[in-house]
């Protein structure tokens, strides 16, 4: 649904809003392989990028998509790739090593439910690495977080994952696409020009020490640097969360992404029915808003967690609450037969019922 009249506010489906936001954020390279509901973002990028002098590659597989994005990122071009969680599974080796090569990259997980939380926040690949993870709850927020993702990727030279879902992709909202951001080509980007200077650039997940510096590959040092960097980043990046009505809440419900919108709606109704319920919606999944959750849990009798999966974020909630209150899982995988991520459970009545049960217990 494109609003060609292009007023300040436009009615855009999530996929298109994300694509437009990426272009505005300076993204000039995108590569992907179709998979619902990521496909639509790819289609929009294929349509939009050439117009701004960018490149969109219809890669022949997810492995090739992430490889292409890697190459473009290494030139300092703001780049992104993505898929559903399933396609991202194929990219895990590269995603892990791109992080160790200290390259900025924005990765979209247009997930099919919320079962990719572990993959996104723990890194499904090998070794110690972390991506920053942002989870918008609607397309308006997606527009903001996409901008943030490119900023963070550039600032930290680290992949930033943005987790969406089928609802986000297919829900149109009136959004405002911000003005374009100009990103300078970073000094470390490859373009060939440093060849023959005696200091030709090297970008490698094995570290950037050169043999002429008498170091050779010093993997231990490189990994230690990367680990220190991850830790600095994790502490420096501000965890974001939307907190509602938790001051006096007996029950605090934690949920993220589009499902959180359903939880919030259910909680609003329960509040209006006189129940002392509040919500925390983590917006950054890594770093997790541990403090916001801990603070909300402090006065609560019980903390409930809703996720459209078998219980993954609940780990992070428990780590935040650390015994201050019991943590109850009220989620569970819900999917219709398309498998794309439409969830029968995402119904305010169902959620009210589950939350009420926790309140009553």
């Amino acid at each position, binding site marked *: 649904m494109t609003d060609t009249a292009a007023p300040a506010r436009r009615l855009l489906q999530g996929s298109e809003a994300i694509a437009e936001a990426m272009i505005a954020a300076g993204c000039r390279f995108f590569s992907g392989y179709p998979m619902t509901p990521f496909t639509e973002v790819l289609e929009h990028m294929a349509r939009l990028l050439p117009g701004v002098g960018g490149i969109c590659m219809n890669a022949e597989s997810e492995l090739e998509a992430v490889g292409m994005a890697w*190459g473009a990122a290494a030139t300092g071009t703001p780049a992104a790739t993505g898929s559903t969680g399933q396609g991202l599974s194929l990219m895990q080796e590269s995603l892990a090593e791109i992080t160790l090569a200290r390259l900025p990259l924005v990765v979209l997980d247009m997930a099919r439910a919320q079962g990719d939380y572990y993959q996104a926040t723990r890194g499904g690949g090998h070794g110690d690495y972390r991506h920053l993870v942002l989870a918008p709850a609607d397309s308006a927020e997606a527009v903001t977080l996409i901008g943030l993702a490119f900023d963070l990727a550039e600032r930290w030279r680290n992949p930033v994952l943005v987790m969406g879902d089928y609802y986000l992709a297919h829900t149109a909202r009136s959004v405002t696409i911000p003005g374009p951001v100009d990103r300078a080509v970073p000094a470390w980007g490859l373009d060939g020009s440093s*060849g023959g200077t005696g200091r030709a650039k090297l970008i490698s997940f*094995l570290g950037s020490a050169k043999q002429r510096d008498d170091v050779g590959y010093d993997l231990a040092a490189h990994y230690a640097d990367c680990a220190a960097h991850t830790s600095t980043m994790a502490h420096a990046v501000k965890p974001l969360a939307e907190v509602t009505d938790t001051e006096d809440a007996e029950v605090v419900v934690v949920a993220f992404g589009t499902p959180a919108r359903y939880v919030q709606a259910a909680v609003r109704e329960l509040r209006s029915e006189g129940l002392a319920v509040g919500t925390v919606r983590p917006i950054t999944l890594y770093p997790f808003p541990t403090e916001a959750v801990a603070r909300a849990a402090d006065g609560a009798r019980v903390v409930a967690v809703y996720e459209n999966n078998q219980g993954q974020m609940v780990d992070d909630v428990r780590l935040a609450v650390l015994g201050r209150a019991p943590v109850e899982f009220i989620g569970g995988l819900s999917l219709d037969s398309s498998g794309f991520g439409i969830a029968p459970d995402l119904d305010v009545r169902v959620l009210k019922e589950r939350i009420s049960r926790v309140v009553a217990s």
Partner: protein
Amino acid sequence: MTGFVPTDRPPSAPARLVDDFTPALIDVGAHHLCPGCGEPVAMRSALEAVDELGLTRRAIAVFGIGCYTAFSNNLDVEVLQALHGRAPSVATGVKRARPDSIVFTVQGDGDMVSEGLQEVLHTAARGESVTCIMLNNGVFGETGGHMSAATVVGQRTKTSLEGRDPDLHGRPILLASLLAHVDGAAYVARGLVNSAGNVARTKKMLLRAFEAQERRAGFSFVEILTMCPTGWFVETEEAPGYLEDNLAAVHTPGVLKDEVDR
């Protein structure tokens, strides 16, 4: 000792230096590859070609993972280290983002014919304006001499101790031959570095491949058969002959396709 010419210092009679210790664009000559390995020779040729064509300030090498990776932090051209099998896609990303650069991959047969066969074929089919260079020793040198998808029938490797058996392990993929049949490929050649003459011939192929890229004729590819005495379990001095009689007998050297001028 009589009869030997002193070689511990430059000559005293007037003379011109025609070849220096460390080849062009290689930072440090010493490396840890095995005695008699053909990969440093191939690397040298590729970099000399870059140098001779004046591409030094535009070249970006994308490395795969194999023994030759030892050179990835040892060059005076820009290098991007890719994963095992993935260099052609990474090179594609680089080239598309920086169309004025000259992009080439350095990969082994394990990297390119086993792990990453699909990448090079798609890159060729796309007619991507990059040059892929494969160092083919018919074996995974780096992991200790295992069979690759390019190992020739009868070749002994750690995973084909009795020699590659076509009934059990199938037959080698002749990558250059296959690529010659892919439409987007403009230049496809196979050289070898088992003698000074063959090194020179291979260098010509490399020069032509880079020319293909410069002229945006399409995808270009040079396979270089290299000695791996360690992975073949032969003596270093037997390796050039082994290469000729075994690998080169199947992976036949020559220019398989040249549509650069088309």
